[in-house]
């Protein structure tokens, strides 16, 4: 089975090629079959590969497959050699299951959601291309090939955000996403350079194995490499300060938001950190930066989420915030917790987005929550599944999100790093905010007065089966998915941690353990913190209930009281405007200056000026050609006289 590893990404690629090259020539059912079928095949293959991997001894859980040499330059020891090769280990196995699993469900969902769109074939082609790129990303066995997938998903994100290209805001958002991602990719590239010239290899295995020999623990080189990789991750995973593209990315079709901007692509940064944990563990300073950025992003995005009215934007900021959690986990060296949350988040956030899509679908493309309300009775399945997801994300005990989030909070608290307590506190506050804005969303959308106009109202209908079935599947996953990774204090095995432990160990980890003192906190403390967060979540839910259900006046009066804060939040802290004024406009003006002044006036002006000077000189000289025979003769004579004088006198006496 292992020799078919390359087929996992290849199926979607074939799907893309067929759908892409024969665009507009295939009947719809065939497009659907190819689009969904290819991902379905990948899913099946992934499952069987997963079981194959599981059958191996934990230390031997690695399947590699090298297809061919991609780039090879020079020879040892400076040889740069990169191949197209795949690596299946516990980490990538989790990832391909998430990608193909959630991806498959979303493909199915799209059949219903995109049914009436003109670009049906194009949509499935792009989606397949995305799946291919994402699978390449998670299965790559070296940095550069991972980068292929990394940029590939960026491209698909660009294409899919701008799917409705006739809308200017859509194509703007796509472009913005691509360019902001490029800034991150720049960091990634530099990180690759540092790693290559230090380790002389880009292979994950080799790098992980050789890192302790090559790098000094905590040395500036490895820190620089990690920070650069992290810059890449902030771009892709929408962390401060590069998160700005993600909310705009909601211009794309909703299933796209679910797949790319919630479940898979945006988590690539977390995956990258987990993949390179051997390096990060050697750079505590870099980890500290990761944790700080993660924590700040979580809080920052959550506050913005409080005041958004667009249903998808709330979810977008929620995604940014949740990604902040994952980075926080990675930052305190709890990579497993990060990946666990990544997986759970993929379930519930995909579910939320798909649910939101279902709502939007029902509401005739209305996205503003202020025009919704009371949808509970019209959309029973959508409501119940979304409610499950909301419970999960807020961290109601026994739902999956509870386990994954509390794991992160506890790891943050118990890690030996400086300021661990602050990290916990920020995560804790964010959890409260999350509960508030999520229930705000639920109350505004599904409860209360029906604020939509009558025309829209008459069209409201529950979505077709193709859309609701994926919702239900995801709801099940997000409800019970957490049981595979329950914390130790519950007295059960943490299967997830055990599964990933081969990846999260190695010489670098030994070295790090040696260097860092572990936090070592008691189980009582863990119970206490867990209880605290549950209480906070419940309080927040009650507040949401109070403001948006029971006493809607209170929310408006509160908003009026803190008008400044409200507008600031609604305008997302004016970050876009800030970037526009500080980065984009100066660059444009500077470019104009370079073009209009340096190029046209300075360089060309100088040259044209020189040319003009010569022309003027020639122009002046021209008049000596008077056409007067006698003046020529005179000049000739003068010349002869002088010449003879020079010959006769000059030579004799000179």
């Amino acid at each position, binding site marked *: 089975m292992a020799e078919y590893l390359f087929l996992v990404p290849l199926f979607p690629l074939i799907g893309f090629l067929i759908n892409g090259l024969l*665009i*507009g020539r295939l009947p719809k059912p065939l497009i659907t079959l190819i689009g969904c079928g290819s991902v379905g095949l990948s899913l099946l293959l992934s499952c069987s590969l997963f079981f194959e991997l599981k059958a191996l001894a934990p230390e031997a859980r690695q399947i590699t497959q090298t297809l*061919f*040499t*991609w*780039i*090879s*330059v*020079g020879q040892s020891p*400076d040889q*740069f050699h990169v191949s197209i090769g795949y690596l299946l280990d516990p980490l990538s196995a989790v990832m391909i299951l998430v990608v193909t699993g959630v991806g498959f469900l979303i493909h199915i969902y799209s059949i219903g959601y995109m049914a009436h769109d003109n670009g049906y074939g194009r949509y499935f082609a792009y989606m397949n291309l995305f799946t291919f790129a994402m699978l390449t990303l998670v299965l790559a066995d070296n940095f*550069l090939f991972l*980068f*292929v997938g*990394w*940029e*590939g998903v960026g*491209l698909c994100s*660009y294409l899919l955000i*701008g799917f409705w*290209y*006739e809308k*200017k805001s859509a*194509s*703007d958002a*796509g*472009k913005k996403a*691509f*360019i902001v991602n*490029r*800034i991150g*990719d*720049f960091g990634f*590239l*530099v990180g*690759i*350079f*540092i790693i*290559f*010239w230090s380790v002389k290899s880009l292979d994950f295995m080799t790098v992980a194995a050789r890192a302790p020999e090559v790098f*000094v*623990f*905590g*040395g*500036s*080189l490895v820190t*620089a490499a990690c920070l650069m990789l992290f810059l890449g991750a902030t771009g892709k995973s929408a962390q401060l300060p590069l998160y700005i593209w993600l909310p705009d990315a909601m211009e794309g079709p909703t299933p796209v938001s679910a797949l790319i901007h919630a479940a898979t692509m945006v988590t690539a940064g977390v995956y990258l950190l987990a993949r390179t944990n051997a390096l990060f563990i050697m750079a505590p300073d870099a980890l500290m930066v990761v944790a700080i950025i993660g924590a700040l992003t979580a809080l920052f995005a959550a506050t913005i989420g409080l005041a958004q009215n667009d249903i998808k934007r709330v979810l977008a900021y929620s995604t940014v915030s949740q990604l902040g959690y994952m980075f926080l986990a990675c930052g305190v060296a709890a990579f497993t917790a990060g990946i666990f949350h990544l997986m759970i988040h993929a379930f519930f956030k995909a579910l939320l987005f798909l649910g939101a899509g279902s709502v939007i679908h029902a509401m005739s493309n209305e996205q503003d929550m202020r025009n919704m309300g009371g949808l509970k009775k019209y959309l029973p399945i959508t409501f119940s599944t979304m409610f499950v997801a909301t419970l999960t994300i807020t961290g109601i005990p026994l739902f999956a999100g509870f386990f994954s989030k509390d794991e992160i909070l506890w790891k943050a608290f118990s890690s030996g790093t400086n300021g661990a307590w602050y990290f916990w506190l920020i995560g804790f506050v964010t959890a409260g905010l999350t509960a508030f804005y999520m229930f705000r969303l639920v109350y505004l959308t599904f409860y209360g007065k029906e604020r939509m106009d009558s025309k829209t109202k008459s069209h409201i209908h529950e979505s077709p089966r193709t859309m609701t079935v994926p919702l239900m599947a995801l709801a099940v996953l997000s409800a019970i998915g957490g049981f595979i990774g329950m914390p130790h204090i519950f007295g059960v095995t943490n299967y997830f941690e055990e599964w990933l432990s081969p990846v999260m160990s190695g010489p670098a980890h030994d070295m790090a353990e040696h260097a860092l003192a572990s936090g070592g906190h008691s189980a009582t403390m863990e119970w206490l913190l867990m209880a605290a967060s549950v209480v906070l979540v419940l309080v927040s839910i009650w507040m949401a209930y109070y403001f948006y259900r029971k006493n809607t006046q209170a929310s408006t009066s509160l908003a009026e009281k803190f008008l400044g804060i409200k507008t600031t939040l609604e305008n997302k802290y004016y970050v876009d405007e800030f970037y526009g004024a500080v980065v984009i406009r100066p*660059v*444009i003006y*500077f*470019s*104009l200056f*370079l*073009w209009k002044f*340096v*190029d046209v006036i300075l*360089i*060309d002006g100088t*040259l044209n000026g020189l*040319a003009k000077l010569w022309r003027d000189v020639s122009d002046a000289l021209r008049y000596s050609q008077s056409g007067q025979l006698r003046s020529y003769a005179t000049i000739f004579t003068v010349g002869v006289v002088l010449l003879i004088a020079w010959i006769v006198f000059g030579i004799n006496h000179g």
Partner: protein
Amino acid sequence: MDNVLLTLVTFFPILGVILLLFVPNKQHDTIKGVSLIIAFITLLISILIYAAFDPLASGMQFEVNEPWVTSLGINYHLGIDGISLLLIALTTVLTILCVLASWRSIKHGVKGFYISLLMLTTGMIGVFCSLDLFLFYVFWEVMLIPMYFIIGVWGGPRRMYAAIKFVLFTMFGSLLMLVALLYIYFQYQAFSGEFTFDLMKIIAAPPLSFQEQLWLFGAFGLAFAIKVPLFPFHTWLPDAHVQAPTVGSVLLAGVLLKMGTYGFLRICIPVFPDATVAYLPYICILALIAIIYGALVSMVQRDIKSLVAFSSVSHMGFVMLGMFTLNLQGVEGSVLQMLNHGISTGALFLIVGMIYERRHTRMIEDFGGLAKVMPVFATFFMIFTLSSIGLPLTNGFVGEFLILLGAYKLNPVYAIVAASGVILAACYMLWMYQRVVFGKVTNPENQKLTDLTGRERLVLIPLVLLVFWIGVYPMPFLDRIEPAVKQTLTYVEAAQVVQNSNEFQPVETVALEPLTADDETEKQMDDHR
């Protein structure tokens, strides 16, 4: 057989010129047909050369060395290594595509146009395979004339200005080159008693004194830098590109610019190794400026063609940077990038030409929403745009990545600055693409545009295939480049070693600074804690 091939590929287009002379002016189809056949046969010959080329051998292959003007020591010396091989292949491929692309767009003076085109081809191929400096110079100048006519006769409204600017810039450089050439010629004679322009012999001779090298490198370097074009000698390029007909732009960007970088690689680096090392930081900095400058300026262009032209400045900056990293990764990436730039920028110019034929405007603001009316066009455009900004699995990525990798070894700062050019590339290309292709069709004239015809698709498809071939499986190309690059680098390595051990001369220490600084910082970084 083998040694005839180079002569054949070089002069076969001339045969076409002679044939065309006998075709009456009015018979346009015959003229085009003859040109197409000639271009096709030239392509076949170059494919034959490619197939017969031994990728493992490091020296020159297919060498021909016959006396030409014996009294002056001028030889008819041709030969190619992997670098020239790829550039010749690029030239022949682009030539046939150009013949196809100009099928409808050239309306007057058809005969003269194709004669110019074929002559240009001979000049270009000749430059890439001549190993005699005099022959090199002859071909270098030969290609100038047809290009002058192509821009000056079949160009846009300001064609005379552009054509003259192009010729004057190039002439200025090449005359300096001629002087330097003669200096070398006489120096070699003084050293060995033999008059020769043979590049191989000159390289094999002991290098000139350091001062001489500085001057001569300056003269050659200026000629090549103008051709590349390196900032601040680039201002002829946008004018020439914008005014030239599509085919002119394609060949200008695709091949002519490469002659500059090729010259650096073939002549400057091997013949003046010490000067190369001494000038290295300055050239790298100019290259970096070109990268950033070209990118920024293209961002604010209103004409698609001049945008692509300025992006060429940026891309050629990458090529220069890679070349002067003087390590295998950088130089190989640079050679590959020459090829890539020829393919993707050439293709972009073709694309612009196709849309220009339909709308007779190239202003970005005149377009919008083309994806709706011309989906196939939009797709091709997208592919080349992505290739131009170096998306992985397209050709641009491999070259750029290797260049940056090499640059990082030379000096991390160079790599970081250059890599930021990659971000800017995405900005200007995507912004332009968005304004041209996306959005609603606002201009009614765009409503009735027809999508690409079969002929136009035929022109673009080979380029698309090349884009992905080099992007996915570049090894066939890299394998051929590697021995040649290794050979070139051996000439400089000695110089670097000498300069490392000998720090008396002030200029050398300046040159050395970044290298040592780099080593030191790396050491410091490792030693830290």
